[in-house]
């Protein structure tokens, strides 16, 4: 019996400094936490790093803390179940709690981490199966050909690659304007969600700005949207395991019956979480109702360039945006 995984050296450092030392010594090191995405890559033999650094034992990367501004700090290795069940998250950022609950299956949420969920690689089946596509360093896209199966692929921001972001929590975190804390060689940076996720036009081989040697330490959600009206919805072929065909996360503050501020983000339609800025500027200062819904529906998917099999995502996205706005009425 074999695990079909290649041989690798495994490190389980207990401190962040140790982890960084190991990452510094090994060029070909892969960071693993929950392993729910990583082990699939290894079992399929598409990625074969010689060194694995398991960061799950590092206490600095784990837990949920309240911040002074009413926001939260969530450690990168906090499991999705812990995020979903945390009372602080549920009361302040219900959209994130909901998103964490809709990821994969209970067993995966028990072990999969929020850091891994936001930084997992795309689920494009061609790329996952080891096709030598642009993202894998080749010079063609197998998902954007006349016969390709691309119903799960992108509507926006296509630059050679048509893969989309698979993460649910990334959508909620982008809507909540979270910042990602990245450490490299002892230097800490705080990266806004808008800069953390990158599209193929910036680097076609990665989904986030994380480079080899970077450790995602935690995620800081500012107090700005704490306790605001929030909404999360995910549409997938199956309720369990499946990745989103489209998902939406929204946070809004109200002044009387009018929307004073709003942040709305749609996922699985672009390589990065897509902030619906048109919808936001339309909705600001308006009262939710039929009139606003009609307008939102018109602009939500404006500029979409569907591929052969994903036209259905256009009305899906429009309706999700409308449903999010409707939840404010």
């Amino acid at each position, binding site marked *: *019996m074999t695990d079909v995984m290649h041989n*690798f050296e*495994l*490190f389980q450092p207990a401190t962040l400094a140790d982890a960084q030392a190991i990452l510094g010594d090994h060029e070909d090191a892969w960071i693993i936490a929950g*392993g*729910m995405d990583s*082990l699939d890559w290894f079992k399929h033999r598409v990625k074969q790093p010689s060194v694995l650094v398991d960061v799950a034992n590092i206490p600095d990367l784990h837990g949920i803390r309240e911040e002074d501004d009413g926001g939260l700090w969530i450690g990168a290795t906090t499991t999705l179940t812990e995020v979903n069940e945390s009372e602080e998250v549920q009361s302040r950022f219900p959209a994130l709690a909901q998103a964490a609950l809709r990821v994969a299956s*209970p067993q995966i949420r028990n*072990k999969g981490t929020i850091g891994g969920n936001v930084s997992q690689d795309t689920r494009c089946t061609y790329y996952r199966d080891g096709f030598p596509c642009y993202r894998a360093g080749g010079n063609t896209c197998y998902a954007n050909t006349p016969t390709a199966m691309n119903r799960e692929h992108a509507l926006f921001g296509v630059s050679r690659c048509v893969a989309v972001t698979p993460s649910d929590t990334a959508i909620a975190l982008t809507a909540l304007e979270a910042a990602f804390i990245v450490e490299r060689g002892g230097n800490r940076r705080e990266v806004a969600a808008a800069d953390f996720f990158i599209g193929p036009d910036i680097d076609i081989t990665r989904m986030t700005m994380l480079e080899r040697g970077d450790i995602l330490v935690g995620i800081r959600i500012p107090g700005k949207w704490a306790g605001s009206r929030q909404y999360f919805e995910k549409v997938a072929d199956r309720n369990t*395991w499946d990745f989103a065909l489209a998902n939406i996360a929204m946070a809004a503050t109200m002044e009387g019956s009018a929307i004073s501020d709003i942040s709305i983000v749609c996922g699985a339609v672009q390589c990065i979480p897509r902030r619906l800025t048109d919808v936001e500027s339309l909705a600001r200062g308006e009262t939710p109702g039929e009139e606003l819904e009609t307008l939102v529906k018109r602009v939500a998917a404006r500029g979409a360039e569907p591929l052969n099999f994903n036209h259905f995502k256009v009305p899906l996205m429009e309706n999700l945006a409308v449903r999010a706005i409707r939840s404010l009425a």
Partner: protein
Amino acid sequence: METYGPYDPTVDYVPGPAPRPNRGHTGETPLWRPLHMTRRNFLRGVVCSGVVIGGSAYLFSATTPARADTRAVERLVRLTVNGRARSVEVAPNETLATTLRYRLGLTGTKIGCNQGECGACTVIADGTTIYSCSTLTHRVRDSEITTVEGVAGEDGTLHPVQQAFIEEIAPQCGFCTPGQVVTAVALLNRNPNPTVEEARLAMSGNLCRCGAYDHYLRGVMKAAERV
């Protein structure tokens, strides 16, 4: 040459191919004789030759390359499985499902998809369910692991979940059942009185290709009344 007539349903045909004629060989010993190979003997042979090949590879490798980096994990670990601490040698790239099945002999845990998409390999680690096929054994070194073998009582009394599954005829082919049992036990340990919706959500990470989901769900609700 022998010739064969049309199939006659009244004749008891001997299964298998007709004996091969011994062409061009005049000696007394036949060129070949049947091996009387049974499946068991065949497997024995394969295992033995594997041991010989593997063992000699070990002997003839002049020096086993030392671990390049001494900070890497040790291969010898102590695992706490079903309340017993057991020492076992574990490769860095070994999953918990492999360790349980092939090193500790706990074959109740099944490997279905081997990529975290079916739930047949579900075990409990520190009170929460995980897919053992998608967990490196080294990761759960310090955890309390419960497999389906550790669910029943010491004297062999079935866990209420197991009893209820039998009564509700939940298993059909039975391959997903160990995972279903473990998931249900973990649920009832955490929440002895789940609603149907809570039970459905908790059990949603276990596929049953026979489609006996409602039977399992009824079993969980029945067991919940008894624990």
